[in-house]
């Protein structure tokens, strides 16, 4: 493991070096908010953002992605996966990526997702500023998560940059001349992790996530579903901004010659009216309450039962994105836990 300690100036010089060498994506200011986008210069990299509008899943599962090209009855896989560095991912988003890694590799390997993932070098940064709706500490994702290639932590005026994988080590090659992190700074970093965990549990899930599958099993007819869903616009914003929502629809798009075209997958969302509509227009989940419940069951029960991880990483994006103010997992899961 390489563990360097640098000034912001040295960090920027390193990032500019990465940008010169290849594609680098990083968190940046966009209007009054933050978004991941291609970095043109290190000065645009924002490591003290609170939360980005969209999670970085868009780089592994793009909103629209051509997966096949067809021509005269033949189908050919297509992928434009290419190497890139993803800079400044918060720990909760890294936890979400690690879950998607499991889901897309388990049983049947989704080569389109995995190809993009293998091409990425992911650098996590510890959270410097909290978004108002975050509850990451309640779900164990407030500090550095497994799976990243490197980790950046701001400690006072210094940045500790540490490699976690061979990919990360290669990325840190440009910092060879920088001093190793000293013991005092590393001790302060430990303290910062503790502080972050404490601060990010202000909004508190009052139930251990591992108990939720069992609790949800008996909560199918809980009044909270109808109560919240009655105000749901079925807009799908909560799905769109969620780092662990990955459901997709597959669509064909033809050229002027209809025997040629592409098959593409696009993000879908279980809160949208037509998510469970099939041929003949039959909808298996036509009530909003059914769809609303489905979302919380998926995060709290179905995915955990499949991969062992609670599928809400506590970023709070859905809480902020919901125009009807009904999408707060903390409130919903606390209600479920309360009665029982």
């Amino acid at each position, binding site marked *: 493991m390489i563990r360097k300690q640098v000034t912001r100036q040295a960090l920027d010089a390193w990032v500019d070096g990465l940008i010169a060498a290849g594609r680098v994506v990083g968190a940046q200011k966009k209007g009054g908010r933050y978004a991941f986008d291609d970095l043109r210069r290190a000065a645009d990299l924002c490591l003290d953002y609170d939360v980005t509008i969209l999670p970085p899943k868009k780089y592994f599962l793009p909103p629209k992605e051509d997966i096949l090209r067809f021509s005269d009855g033949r189908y050919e896989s297509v992928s434009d996966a290419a190497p890139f560095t993803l800079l400044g991912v918060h720990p909760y988003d890294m936890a979400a990526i690690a879950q998607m890694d499991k889901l897309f590799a388990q049983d049947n390997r989704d080569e389109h997702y995995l*190809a993009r993932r293998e091409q990425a070098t992911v650098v996590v940064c510890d959270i410097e500023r909290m978004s108002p709706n975050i509850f990451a500490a309640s779900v164990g994702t407030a500090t550095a998560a497994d799976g990243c290639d490197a980790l950046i932590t701001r400690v006072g005026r210094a940045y500790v940059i540490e490699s976690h994988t061979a990919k990360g080590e290669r990325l840190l090659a440009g910092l060879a001349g920088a001093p190793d992190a000293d013991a005092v700074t590393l001790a302060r970093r430990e303290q910062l992790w503790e502080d972050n965990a404490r601060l990010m549990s202000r909004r508190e899930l009052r139930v251990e996530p591992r108990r939720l599958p069992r609790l949800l099993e008996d909560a199918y007819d809980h009044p909270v579903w109808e109560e919240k869903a009655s105000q749901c616009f079925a807009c799908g914003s909560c799905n769109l901004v969620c780092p662990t929502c990955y459901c997709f629809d597959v669509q064909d798009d033809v050229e002027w010659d209809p025997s040629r075209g592409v098959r593409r997958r696009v993000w879908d969302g279980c809160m949208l009216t037509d998510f469970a509509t099939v041929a003949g227009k039959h909808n298996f989940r036509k009530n909003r309450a059914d769809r609303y419940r489905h979302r919380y069951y998926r995060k709290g029960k179905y995915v955990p039962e499949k991969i062992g991880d609670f599928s809400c990483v506590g970023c709070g994006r859905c809480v902020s994105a919901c125009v009807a103010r009904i999408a707060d997992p903390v409130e919903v899961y606390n209600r479920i836990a309360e009665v029982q």
Partner: protein
Amino acid sequence: MQPDPYAPMPAAIVDVFAETPNIKTFRLRPEAPVPFRAGQFVELSVPGLGEAPFTPSSAPSVADTMEITIMRVGLVTERLHALKPGAVVGVRGPLGKPYPLEAMRGREVLVVGGGVGLAPLRALLFALFEDVTAYRKIILRYGARTPSDLVYRGALDDLWGMADAVDAMLTVDRRDDGWTGHEGVVTTILEPGRLTCDARNGVAVVCGPPIMMKFTTVKLLDLGYAPDRIYLSMEKNMSCGIGKCGHCRLGAYYACQDGPVFTFDKVQGLSRIWD
């Protein structure tokens, strides 16, 4: 890229048989054999329109061609019905889990079909026929709305040459002038007097419209079949076929991956399974 689970292989349509006014059987010859087992499904692609899941209805032991019986209900099936021999479609599979023939060996197998639901059951019947003595008895109960809605009608008398090996009975919800057989929904031919079965040890395999599976399951439980020996087809909303896209979620399961065939005990606690 590694083998892409989303990439279909070309399959030529070599024959088309009209079964009913809105159901056709297509015989396909995929570029390479698709070695499916009874109960597994494939995704059929029509370039430009997309994919839909179907369970082959032909004998699994025939490798170079497969038959798929398709009802016209939506975009993809509408287009498939317009295709003639020589046309090429895409096929991807086999997907999902097959009927567990091992669990049926030594037992009586009651096969109950409704309408186009006989299609996957025909593949099962063909598989059972291949080792017919391994099963204590094979019973078929099949119903459709009207006589003209029965699929494989030309074969239903001699049951593909296996009539002697099968205790079969047919019914229609509404008879027409030419129908001399039983009239009534399919559960009426599961009544004592019309069905002698070994519910305690036997297995029952059901496929048909949800409403038919619902009432058939109730009837089978009444007869004494154990919930874990009633096999149901739960093919709702399957899309990617490999457990990724999220559409066919069925409680803790994906229909496409954990099914599409489930025993009733696995799904009985879930709500709206009969929707």
